[in-house]
């Protein structure tokens, strides 16, 4: 057996005023009273909700542009960068009969984010070249089954909604195509 390397320090006996406990009780009550009079730092969740600061990282969602077109082109960079491997993208070609099929070409066939794996790090939003994936202010997420917390493409667009796009890269491309050779 290993030798036990410790020293027993005898506890000092309490003095007589310590045995009364009254000074200690008074000191404790002083702290309690002081805090009672201060402004509370907690919220009565869920009746009260905190104000979400700018740049908050809530649940990741997919967004559409003002024309209702899905921005994601399934480049799979979010899937690649995601540290807990929560994202799973199945790339696909868009319907060749769609009006902008010639300039867009690619869109996700399926897009899944497993919210049980997600760590809300925001890397997907940072890496997205099309600004299609955004972390929202929503943070309270629950479900009755594991499957309900794996968000599919439909759910992600429902949560994400529309985010107006300043660039409209594909529109520019379509215009260039209509214009013909530039030089």
């Amino acid at each position, binding site marked *: 057996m290993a030798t036990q390397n410790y020293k027993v320090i005898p506890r000092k006996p309490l003095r007589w005023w310590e045995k009364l406990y009254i000074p200690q009780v008074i000191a404790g009550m002083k702290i309690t009273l002081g805090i009672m009079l201060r402004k509370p730092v907690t919220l009565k969740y869920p009746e009260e909700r905190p104000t979400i600061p700018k740049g908050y990282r809530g649940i990741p969602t997919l967004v559409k542009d003002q024309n209702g077109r899905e921005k994601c082109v*399934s480049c799979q*960079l979010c899937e*690649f960068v995601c540290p807990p491997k929560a994202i799973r993208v199945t*790339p696909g070609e868009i319907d060749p009969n769609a009006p902008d099929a010639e300039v867009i070409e690619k869109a996700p066939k399926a897009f899944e984010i497993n919210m049980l794996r997600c760590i809300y790090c925001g890397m997907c939003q940072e890496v997205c070249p099309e600004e299609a994936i955004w972390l929202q202010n929503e943070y309270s997420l629950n479900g009755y089954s594991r499957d309900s917390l794996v968000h599919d493409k439909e759910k992600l667009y429902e949560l994400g909604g529309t985010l107006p796009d300043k660039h409209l890269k594909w529109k520019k491309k379509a215009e*260039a195509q209509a214009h013909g*050779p*530039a030089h």
Partner: protein
Amino acid sequence: MSEEQPNLVTINIDGKDYQVAAKQNLVEAAKSVGIEIPHYCYHPKLEMAGTCRMCLVEIGMPMRDRAMGAPVLNEDGSPKIGWMPKPAIACGTSVSPNLHMKTKSPMVQTSRASVTEFLLANHPLDCPICDQAGECTLQAFSADYGNGKSRYRDAKNVKPRNKSVGPRVLINNERCILCRRCVRFCREILKRPILGPIQRGSMTQIDCYPGQELDGNYSMNVVDICPVGALTSKDFRFKMRVWFLKQTKSICTESSVGVNTTVWSREGKIYRITPRRNDSVNDTWMSDSGRMIYKTVDDENRLTGTRRGESSVDFDEAIDAARALLSAGKPAFVASGKMSLEEQWALKTLAASFGGDVYLTQTLAENDGFLISEDRTPNRRGALVSGLVKDFESASVAKLGAAIDAGEVKTVFVCGEDLLEQGLDAKQLKKVDIIYLGTHKNATSEEATVVLSGRTVFEKSGSFVNQQFRLQRFDAAIPGIAGTHNELDVIAALAARTITDASVETIWLSMNKDCAALAGLEFASIPADGVLLDASPWAKLAFPETGSLLYKPAGK
């Protein structure tokens, strides 16, 4: 330079002397000593074109006095180098003794950045939807040598996108950097000038000549050699990003040429097959049909599970049934050139333990003169090397038919072949009990009493011996699909007493002793480009091959 070896020359790169092989260009010479010279249009297996200008370097030679021919020296006595005033292309310059080259000087760096800026002026920012992203040299060199930003403010040019140039290839002319590798491939390798540039200046596009299209069985090689995403494969289009894919070295099973391949897979699913460079077998080329073999893995005809009679049974029960059949009367074993060398050796051991004769199938078709030979199995010569058969004549399947008719054979163990295709008839199959070990259903497996499901070349490791008697190794890219067993495990289970460990490495230990041609070789140390075996014991045998790229049979 008198002490130099005849095939080596000394060149100076960035102030340091290197010995490199003679008769090569500066791109290859620099590569051989680990220095990268970026290039797009140069391809080692195509003629030099010099169109991309990316490989510009500064080149100089020691100066000589014009009148006397004496070396001009610096003040410190070192030879004075006469640098050319402007950069020159490394791909178009051959090595010569004492050549000096600068690959990191400010002039070279500016040249590369400027060339990149010009190439990117009209290049679309398509990387998120481009299949080449991740293996695109323009992407890589722009990051390594480019400016990192564009000064170009004008509108980009518009050219045809996603135009089909053939049954398997798409072209996006906006992405094209006009290196003309595909044009040279058609002209020099296919010997059919299908692709060519049309229009002029900034409107130049690559297109097919009128009335032609990029068909034929080697069209997808242009996808591999395209340095950008201009030529893309229809099969692989938008399937998966390349950075997710695991690369496994493999061998094409299409014919006895034994094309070296890379299998690209992710999470047990194969996405594509590309050729792997082997200067002794296939250079950097591969057939389109060979690239599609991965689809056989989850083909609807794929066999899974084990079957006895009409009912599925578990593996052990099927093995017991097969052993009982093999012991019931004289068995015959039908081997195939599709089996790996290790499986053929294991089958030899199995046949010896049950005292049966071995027959070897043959699958012949037309030679395409390039990379598909007459023998459409990858490893028929392996049957000779492993000692499974002495020669092809005495092991022909026609003799099995005669033996069945004579009533000498009671059970036939078939490895992945259809005996009806091999010349037997349905009546002969009814006379015997068949044990079938293979990957896919066929007429023989339907007739079989016991069916054992094997694995495709992508799901196991092993080696093949190609038409040159070159031993080449392939590795498992994906795990075997559910319900299949490695053929080696199946054969070992049948030959329980003679093979105790069915791993490829252990089998090689026995094969080393047993097969003279393999003495001294180890499975783990088979190099990536294979080992040429001593074929002299079989020099007198007749082989069906009449020659393909880089192979000419002796005496033909």
